[in-house]
């Protein structure tokens, strides 16, 4: 069977006995690299964070922080990884490590290697600091179309360090203040910094990989044709495109499957095109890549991304994966429904296009056949002129929605609603369109009376349930309030502090 070879901290490590379900975290630890820790095994705490050399948009390399607990090591065949041990040593710490250590950034220290890796990724972010002052950075990120209140000043350091980079890392000891201060104290990488220099060269190309151990296979096909052939021949295969959901199943639910096919590297699934009539986003681009490459062209998605899990997840998770798992609380679907998105499905028989609103058929069920892959998501243009993404959860950073609402509303020059599309998550077995509310709004003036009527319709959409996240009553009222809040945010400026 094929060996995998992973370059860790500059050293090539080969392994011929990798199981398909072996995570990068377990593999690193079994190699004696115990800096990365398991805190939750589901991508929530970030104690396992490591850096992966990923392709940057300019052809170079972006040091990208990921959750090692969710990533099969076989998926890193031929790739480069840097762990906390590789960043620096106690005698010669990396700047982020020195900053964390100097002023109280660690207490028990268990989360600290993970913080160091997430912090290093932001330290090396291309263009960090290029926008200058905090205020400039903040306003560059503020999205005029969504008109959502933001609190960016506290999230960006004077060094343009974006605190959201650490949103997927939990610390139970420090209370975060010293970690924030350490992050905001960082300068620019030194000229001699080898990891900074590494950014200039391309990332390692993806490699076709095929490993088998104990009757379980992990395959990274050469190209789309091979992938589709495999799915056709073995329709029971598990397809992963980022593996952030797969990792949770493997770690928490003990899921083991005979064949795992990884597709996030397939170039055919990683394209992004824009024409006058549509933007087409490759299903295997990571959400971070989508955000960067869209460059603000889809304000609704820009409102979504910061609220979608954490950067550690967004650096791996894909739109195809999020729609493929068909979770009723997958935030991307909620936004894409409002954007009237269509999916391009591809199989050995050819392609077909499906309206996302008709894609979901039941709880985690869709019209996608086992031999089909989501190739791309097509967002029709022009976009509605009022867009917002409202997510209600217990915690503001990195939480799962109790309720999510995507709004795309076309306001005519005469102040009436020309068209309205509203996507809902968390209130039914699938993400749904709020059709009755859309109808109630369409043709009405954008005023308080119409909003109140439509909001009460919205509050009755779906069939919300009570669970540990929220009660059914709260969920229903949050739908209602989402429209009122949207109206408030459009109808008058925020009261100055």
């Amino acid at each position, binding site marked *: 069977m094929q060996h995998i070879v992973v370059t860790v901290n500059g050293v090539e490590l080969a392994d011929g006995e990798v*199981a398909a379900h072996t995570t990068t975290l377990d593999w690193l630890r079994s190699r004696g690299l*115990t*800096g990365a*820790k*398991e*805190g939750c*095994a*589901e991508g*929530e705490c970030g104690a396992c964070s490591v850096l992966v050399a990923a392709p940057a948009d300019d052809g170079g390399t972006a040091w990208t922080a990921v959750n090692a607990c969710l990533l099969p090591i076989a998926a890193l065949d031929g790739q480069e990884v840097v*762990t*906390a*041990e590789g960043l620096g*040593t106690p005698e010669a*710490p990396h700047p982020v*490590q020195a900053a*964390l*250590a100097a*002023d*109280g*950034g*660690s207490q*028990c*220290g*268990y989360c*600290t*290697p993970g913080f*160091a890796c997430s912090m290093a990724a932001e330290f090396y972010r291309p263009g960090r600091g290029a926008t200058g002052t905090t205020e400039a950075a903040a306003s560059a990120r503020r999205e005029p179309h969504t008109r959502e209140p933001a609190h960016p000043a*506290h999230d960006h350091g004077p060094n343009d360090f974006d605190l959201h980079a650490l*949103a997927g890392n*939990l610390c*139970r000891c420090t*209370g*975060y*203040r010293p970690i924030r201060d350490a992050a905001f104290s960082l300068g620019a990488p030194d000229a001699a910094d080898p990891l900074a220099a590494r950014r200039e060269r391309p990332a390692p190309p993806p490699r076709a990989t095929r490993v088998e151990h104990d009757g379980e296979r992990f395959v990274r096909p050469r190209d789309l044709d091979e992938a589709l052939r495999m799915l056709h021949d073995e329709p029971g295969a598990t397809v992963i495109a980022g593996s952030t959901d797969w990792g*949770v199943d493997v770690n928490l639910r*003990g899921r083991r499957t005979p064949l795992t096919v990884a597709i996030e590297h397939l170039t055919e699934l990683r394209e992004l095109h824009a024409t006058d009539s549509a933007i087409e986003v490759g299903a295997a681009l990571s959400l971070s890549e989508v955000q960067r490459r869209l460059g603000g062209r889809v304000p609704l998605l820009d409102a979504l991304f910061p609220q979608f899990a954490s950067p550690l997840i967004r650096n791996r998770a894909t739109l195809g994966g999020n729609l493929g798992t068909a979770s009723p609380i997958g935030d991307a679907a909620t936004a894409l429904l409002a954007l009237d998105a269509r999916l391009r499905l591809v199989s050995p028989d050819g392609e077909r296009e499906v309206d996302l609103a008709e894609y979901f058929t039941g709880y985690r069920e869709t019209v996608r056949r086992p031999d089909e892959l989501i190739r791309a998501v097509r967002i029709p243009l022009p976009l509605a002129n009022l867009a917002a993404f409202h997510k*209600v*959860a*217990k*915690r*503001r*950073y*990195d*939480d799962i929605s109790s309720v999510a609402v995507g709004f795309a509303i076309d306001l005519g020059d005469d102040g009436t609603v020309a068209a309205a599309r509203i996507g809902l998550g968390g209130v039914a077995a699938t993400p749904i369109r709020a059709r009755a509310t859309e109808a109630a709004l369409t043709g009405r003036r954008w005023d*308080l009376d119409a*909003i*109140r009527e439509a*909001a*009460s319709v919205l509050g009755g959409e779906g069939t919300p349930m009570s669970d*540990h*996240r*929220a009660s059914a009553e*709260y969920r229903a009222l*949050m739908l*209602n*309030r989402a429209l009122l*809040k949207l109206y*408030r945010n459009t109808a008058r400026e925020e*009261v100055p*502090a």
Partner: protein
Amino acid sequence: MSELAARPDGAVVGRRVAHESAAQHATGVATYTDDLAARRAGVLTAWPVQSEHAHARIRLDVAPALEVPGVVHVLTEADVPGVNDAGAKGDEPLFPDEARYHGHALAWVLGESAEAARRGAAAVRVEYEPLPSIVTIAEAVEQGSFQGFAPTVRRGDAASALANAPHVVEGESFVGGQEHFYLETHASLAHVDSEGQVFLDSSTQHPSETQEIVAHVLGVPAHRVTVQVLRLGGGFGGKEMQPHGLGAVAALGAVRTGRPVRVRLTRTQDLTMTGKRHPYHATWRAGFDDDGRILALEATLTADGGWSLDLSEPVLGRALCHVDNAYWIPDIAVHGRIAKTNKTSQTAFRGFGGPQGMFVIEDILGRVAPRLGIDAATLRERNLYRPGQTTPYGQEVRHAERLQEIWERVRTESAFDERRAAIARFNAGSPDVKRGLAMTPVKFGISFTFTAYNQAGALVHVYKDGSVLVNHGGTELGQGLHTKMLQVAATALGVPLAAVRLAPTRTDKVPNTSATAASSGADLNGGAVKHACDQIRDRLADVAAAHLGGDPGDIRFADGIVASSATERGMAFAELVETAYHERVQLWAAGFYRTEGLGWDPATMQGTPFRYFAYGAAAAEVEVDGFTGATRLRRVDIVHDVGDSLSPLVDLGQVEGAFMQGAGWLMLEELRWDETDGPGRGRLLTQSASTYKLPSFSELPDELNVHFLERAREDGAVYGSKAVGEPPFMLAFSVREAIREAVGAFGPAGRSVELASPATPEAVFWAIEAARDAGAPVDETAGETVTDAAASVTAGS
């Protein structure tokens, strides 16, 4: 000044130094228990078979597990040579014949890998004969299901005082539990060494008790078992009692198989198997005079203890001793009891009942203030202890003047009154988003209420080259204890910090240690380390006086130089040590410390359980979204009394971290259990990091100002310092009270606001709805009701 508290010139204590392992933490080389297992060959993994019923008689068939490839053995009661109990009270069978809670470990499968052990555990057949279960405090009360003692703290005649009070209010309060969520889950690694000694690496806060329980499970004397603690990835009380059984499983497996055995709980196992902060229910009646002074309080506190007693009794004792928080309550009767339920056995957690006790009085004051027509900050201020007053359990509130000083400082430094006026103006113009500002005090008693625990030992070696090795009985949980102990030793011996190294905590170095708990680690172990170092220094002073001239009393030790003030001659510390060795002077010493002046009668709940009190106060400002109930922390100002700090950076970290952990408990962290009669009854629903949310960066206040009380020497503790681990946790009540203020602003003035705990967005939302339903808010800045229709989009929805 006491000798214990006096600081020499050039003291290393008091300097702002980084955590002793900070560079190792950040570079990933700091080693934790399970990291050892990853680097050792031939280690077996133990995996639990967990109950799927809250209460059931069980029969196990382990044979199918043994068919699973890689499974080596299944540990059951039949393997136990000694006592089949994992606790100190005899009510925690290590291998139970009855499942007492959903998730209860019934057997442990040993496998060549975690994968094999997990598959083996899944293959074990468990026959359940379900029994009736109790999963809430209400059910326990209804069925009379209690355990342990039911104490009362009493002073005066609360019933009569209530009968005569001008204002009497009554109510109920409920505060939820809290998962420790130390980032490192429980870990143990055991092997039997060449001499037949069982050596256990454990993530325990209480190595001596882990040792005792491993020894009694194995049926061997304590001297056959050594427990080592490198460092913990957080403890917070969750590793005080809970590690013992897990260590015993590893040790039993090692003895049974002759191979090293590791136990490392997954997050979900840790959440579903180990104890948490106790939820508390309270009923109360409180009497006030017209000025808002508390006249009397009657209360009954019921703790949800879970399936076994664990530490529920001392936790309850501390809760009763903190119902007063920082307030003088002349007549009081507070009863406590412990419900026995089919849930995890609730245990120690930072504050140890103190937070639950204080919750009651803070909830009362927050709810009563509007009814009395007194703003909550003024109400609290009027009731603060004054010098000369005593607690309900009869202890003088020494340094009560510090409470007043701290309160005034916070009020001034946070610009409390100006900001409150500004917030009233903001709220008047902001129908959908309201802000609130509140101040709360903390008074927290320091010492174990179990008096015997207030002792500690240390073992200090000085080697011939002048380097120093310190062993002590405390464990490093991340709280910086080792950093402080290095500073204490360097101060006492007058050497640079770099000359001192700390060895990992081991029960064969310092025996019979107390848990590193109750904020006492530095007080107790610091006293012991100092005692050991003082003995060595005194011996060296004799040698130095002979060589340098003068009396031993003239010899000064500082920064690695030993000098005689009589002759002004000096020599290097290392040179003196070498000289002393040749003169056959003992260069090592055992140190011992016990806290003086304690006297506590648990039967009457009267006496002096605490050496001193730690004080603090906080002002918190929040902003609440009326659409969703989501809360943001805008600004927090804290003044806290750490005595004269041993290590300011460490203490700052404790204050900030404890505050944020407290804020998490009160506004976010929610343990939800299946309380239905369905098949999952008793199951913890929030059993992973994706469902149990602890604070992240989004809960960090935009502005966080922490100051220490100055000139704060505590005569009764090492180098004049004070304990700091727990007290600041309770500063977070300021956040909850600020949320209450903000919620109140959505409704009419003078209305009492009830707020569920934790104050999650949903809980806050319902409180806002109730406030709105009570009528329109009054703009206090203008003196009229806000009627701007456009300003209130949610009305009529």
